[in-house]
């Protein structure tokens, strides 16, 4: 049916020319009246009688016009515009109220929108790949060894690919850094080492050129490389002729076959990857391809359409079973764990983000309560206006609609200001975000986030408008109209205001407790000693190209020379090498056995693992890690001498209780030689090498000379500036080999800082929200009490006139404040306890129900509330009884 469309169109037209319609109709009615009058005159009436009869016959003039207008127009929209116009007028008339309300709301909505934009980008928005729901990670797990998540060997990966029927494709991916020597100074590039299926699996289209083909992954294929758009533009001037030419990675030529768009994020890695090469071409990882025990590859799979996770898991379990039967030495005990890719990428950030979103939601709730309170105050002074409207025939619904239009306009104004604030807030947030936060999707205020903000402001507008509107519409017209100057406030309304103020206190308490707990936990975290001296330590990473430095002998030769050169510089004597260095992204964990006690695999006990660090002799001295007993490494410990190790205190206490570990032997090592015998020659203090928040794990140190790596992390203790230290190291490295880059020069204190970026981020934000909540709640209390005082001026005057002392008045008002506050605290406390339980996993050294935090927060809140109530109380105290009595 088109009829209603035509109707709508014709009605909408009228919106723009209402006067014309009215005039036309008046003409028609006029003619009609004239004709009727003529007819009546014909019948013999006097002209006056005829006119009167005609009027009656036609019907009420005004009513007819109203009906006509309604039929022509869109009455709902018209009254809406009328309401909006009126609302804007009312808001203009009260600039103070409007400013406070809009500002409060803007803060609330702005903060919510900003946090939501992060939550949306990280948690809600699907990963930027084709059909992201089908993407899963497949990790290997081993319950007996206590390993929840690790990669799978390349040989197993091939079996998985060949045997499964549930994934349309599987791909493996690891990353490290290679040295690029083309297009400028030698530099280290973030390199993803992938099986050739990855890009096809993720459905990535290259900007130019092609992605890897299955042939590129075969043994003996020519080395090829995919280059990121950023690297291509930044280093190669976006020259399309780079395709087909070769670039040198670790001084080996790779042919460039394609450019990967800058928007592509390699799953698992928060850092931007710059080049991608096939696994078979990688100098390090390709050597481990034939090792079935080498847990090399994290695997991504794309489920076939229609296959459920349960089916896939069942299939992978069956394959694991077959592999364990076929290769028991490497595969028994190992299972496969499937996790949705998005969940895996987001990891434990989820809880923190949701807590922040909840917290910022509470702030908005408090803001709404505040505005509702302001509106209630205003509604009281407007009850006369509303009574007049009611008397003139406005229905209850009509009045509620008008008041709600006002608050909706207020909500939208606040929302608009909030969105502006959010744009700025997102920018500020982006600089604060910890780099470890996964950002597969860009964090910004996009349409979805805008929609959220608008919805939020609309809901807020209705939420804080509904209560006052209901009260206003229920008002007793008679009494409102009768009261001349003082308009009475109903008991219910006063109760509603007190309820709102107390509610604000409760909500603020929840936020303050959460912030207090995080703050205490963070300060505890920061006061934890990492176990080594962080001051004046600078570290620099150097990685050796695999093809030139393929022999361990070369690695030691390089590091010996480097260390000798650095140490000969004045001010840099205290230098050492450690791989991996403390607070690194990477850590090496190895299983070990104690010679003379039954091996773990035989006894069936949980496996023993230890962290592993290879160091040069001066390391403990440079880092100020104390030697507890035995000796340090020295010149004796070289490749040809017996293997020795120094263990940490925790390692000693856990594995050698009530014994002297010195002289005992333990076996550990990298595959393919996992059982190398090491004699314990020393015990050193514990180090929190992973993060400050985690207890020190058992550690073994080995001499670099006996266990060299293909790179070196140099740590230098120096009072010189970090940049001059870096310059010297760079200089010395280039003197040995001009093609070697030095990367990641950093001060140790900065590294420690970076390692606590996430807790700092959430503590800062939650603290900010808690302060906002505190201020808002204090304003709320202040508003309620000062309004109550101003309404009771008369009563107070009488009291003073009858002999009440100023102290009595002060106490009376303060009592009102404290009753509100304590009611709020009483309700808020259990909520705060329940809320803080959500934080459990984010706390360090503080329990979720920490009584000290609760007490301090409650006292602070009560004190602030009392202060907010004291200001109006003082005003009440100073009331002049004469003025107050005349106040009428």
């Amino acid at each position, binding site marked *: 049916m088109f009829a209603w469309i035509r*109707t709508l169109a014709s009605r909408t037209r009228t919106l723009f020319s209402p006067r014309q319609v009215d005039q036309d109709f008046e003409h028609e009615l006029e*003619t009609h009246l004239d004709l009727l009058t003529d007819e009546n005159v014909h019948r013999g009436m006097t002209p006056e009688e005829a006119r009167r009869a005609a009027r009656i*016959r036609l019907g009420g003039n005004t009513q007819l016009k109203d009906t006509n207008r309604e039929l*022509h127009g869109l009455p709902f929209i018209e009254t809406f515009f009328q309401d909006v116009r009126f609302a804007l007028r009312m808001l203009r008339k009260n600039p103070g109220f409007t400013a406070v309300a809009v500002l409060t709301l803007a803060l609330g909505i702005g903060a919510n929108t900003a946090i939501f934009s992060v939550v949306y980008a990280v948690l809600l928005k699907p990963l930027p790949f084709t059909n992201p729901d089908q993407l899963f990670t497949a990790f290997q797990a081993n319950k007996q060894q206590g390993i929840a998540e690790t990669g799978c060997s390349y040989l197993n990966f091939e079996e998985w690919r060949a045997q499964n029927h549930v994934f349309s494709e599987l791909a493996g991916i690891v990353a490290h850094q290679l040295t690029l020597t083309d297009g400028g100074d030698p530099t280290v590039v973030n390199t993803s080492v992938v099986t050739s299926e990855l890009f096809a699996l993720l459905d990535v289209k290259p900007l130019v050129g092609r992605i890897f083909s299955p042939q590129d992954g075969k043994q003996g294929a020519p080395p090829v490389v995919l280059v990121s758009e950023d690297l291509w533009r930044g280093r190669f001037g976006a020259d399309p002729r780079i395709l087909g030419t070769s670039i040198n990675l670790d001084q080996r030529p790779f042919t460039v076959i394609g450019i990967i768009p800058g928007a592509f994020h390699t799953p698992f890695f928060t850092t931007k990857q710059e080049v991608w090469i096939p696994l078979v071409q990688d100098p390090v990882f390709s050597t481990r391809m034939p090792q079935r025990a080498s847990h090399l590859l994290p695997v991504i799979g794309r489920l076939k359409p229609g296959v459920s996770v349960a089916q896939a898991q069942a299939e992978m379990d069956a394959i694991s079973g077959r592999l364990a039967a076929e290769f028991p030495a490497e595969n028994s005990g190992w299972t496969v764990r499937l996790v949705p890719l998005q969940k895996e990428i987001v990891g434990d950030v989820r809880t923190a983000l949701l807590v922040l979103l909840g917290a910022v939601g509470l702030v908005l709730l408090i803001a709404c309560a505040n505005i509702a309170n302001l509106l209630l105050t205003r509604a009281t002074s407007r009850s006369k206006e509303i009574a007049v409207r009611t008397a003139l025939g406005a229905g209850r619904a009509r009045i509620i609609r008008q008041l709600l239009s006002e608050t909706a306009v207020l909500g939208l104004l606040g929302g608009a200001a909030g969105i502006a604030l959010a744009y700025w807030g997102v920018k500020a947030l982006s600089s604060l975000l910890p780099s470890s936060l996964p950002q597969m999707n860009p964090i910004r205020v996009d349409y979805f986030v805008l929609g959220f903000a608008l919805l939020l402001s609309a809901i807020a507008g209705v939420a804080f408008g509904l209560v006052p509107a209901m009260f206003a519409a229920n008002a007793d017209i008679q009494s409102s109209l009768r009261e001349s100057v003082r308009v009475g406030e109903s008991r219910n309304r006063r109760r509603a205001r007190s309820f709102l103020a107390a509610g604000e206190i409760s909500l603020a308490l929840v936020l303050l407790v959460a912030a207090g707990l995080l703050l205490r936990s963070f300060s505890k975290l920061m006061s934890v000693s990492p176990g080594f001296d962080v001051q004046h330590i600078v570290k620099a990473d150097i990685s050796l190209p695999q093809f030139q430095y393929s022999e361990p002998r070369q690695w030691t030769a390089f590091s010996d020379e480097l260390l000798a050169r650095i140490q000969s510089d004045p001010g840099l004597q205290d230098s050492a090498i450690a791989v991996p260095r403390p607070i690194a992204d990477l850590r090496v964990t190895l299983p070990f056995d104690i010679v003379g006690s039954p091996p773990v695999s035989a006894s069936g006990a949980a496996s023993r693992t230890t962290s592993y660090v290879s160091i040069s002799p001066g390391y403990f001295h440079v880092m100020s890690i104390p030697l507890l007993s035995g000796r340090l490494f020295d010149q004796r410990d070289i490749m040809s001498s017996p293997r020795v190790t120094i263990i940490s205190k925790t390692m000693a206490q856990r594995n050698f209780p009530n014994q002297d570990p010195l002289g005992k032997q333990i076996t550990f090592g990298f595959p393919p030689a996992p059982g190398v015998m090491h004699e314990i020659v020393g015990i050193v203090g514990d180090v929190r090498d992973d993060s400050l928040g985690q207890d020190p794990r058992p550690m073994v140190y080995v001499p670099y000379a006996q266990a060299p790596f293909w790179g070196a992390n140099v740590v230098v203790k120096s009072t010189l500036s970090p940049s001059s230290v870096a310059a010297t190291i760079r200089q010395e490295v280039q003197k040995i080999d001009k093609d070697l880059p030095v990367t990641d020069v950093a001060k140790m204190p900065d590294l420690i800082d970076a390692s606590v970026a996430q807790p700092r981020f959430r503590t800062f934000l939650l603290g900010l929200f808690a302060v906002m909540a505190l201020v808002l709640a204090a304003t709320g209390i202040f508003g309620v009490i000062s309004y109550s005082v101003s309404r009771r001026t008369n009563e107070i005057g009488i009291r003073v006139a009858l002999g009440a002392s100023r102290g009595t008045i002060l106490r009376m008002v303060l009592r009102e404040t404290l009753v509100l506050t304590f009611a709020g605290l009483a309700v808020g406390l259990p909520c705060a306890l329940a809320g803080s339980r959500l934080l459990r996993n984010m706390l360090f050294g503080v329990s979720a129900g920490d009584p000290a935090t609760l007490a301090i927060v409650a006292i602070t809140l009560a004190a602030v509330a009392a202060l907010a109530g004291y200001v109006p109380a003082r005003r009440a105290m100073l009331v002049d009884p004469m003025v107050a009595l005349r106040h009428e």
Partner: protein
Amino acid sequence: MPADKSEILQGTLDLMVLKTLSTMGPLHGYGIARRIEQISEEALRINQGTIYAALVRLMQKGWISGAWGTSNNNRKAKFYSITKTGRKQLSAEARSWERVSTVIGRVLRIAERG
């Protein structure tokens, strides 16, 4: 509000206006009102103003059109005439009206007998 009145009455008046315009040709509001009253032999004495609500509705549906002209005694008046779609609508409505009234008549007769 027009919605407050019963739909049947509204529809009936609309139908009568359409029929009047289809038999009489262009007429102004007064003419239509008079004509309906005459045909119904003054049994249907409507509040003549209500005719205008019907006219607006019919205009909006596109079943009639209006144009300003001059009445016999030289007054400016708006003359309404039925449109093509209006005629189609009229025959459809008339048929359904007849059907409904037949059915209702039959039901009433049955009720009397029963």
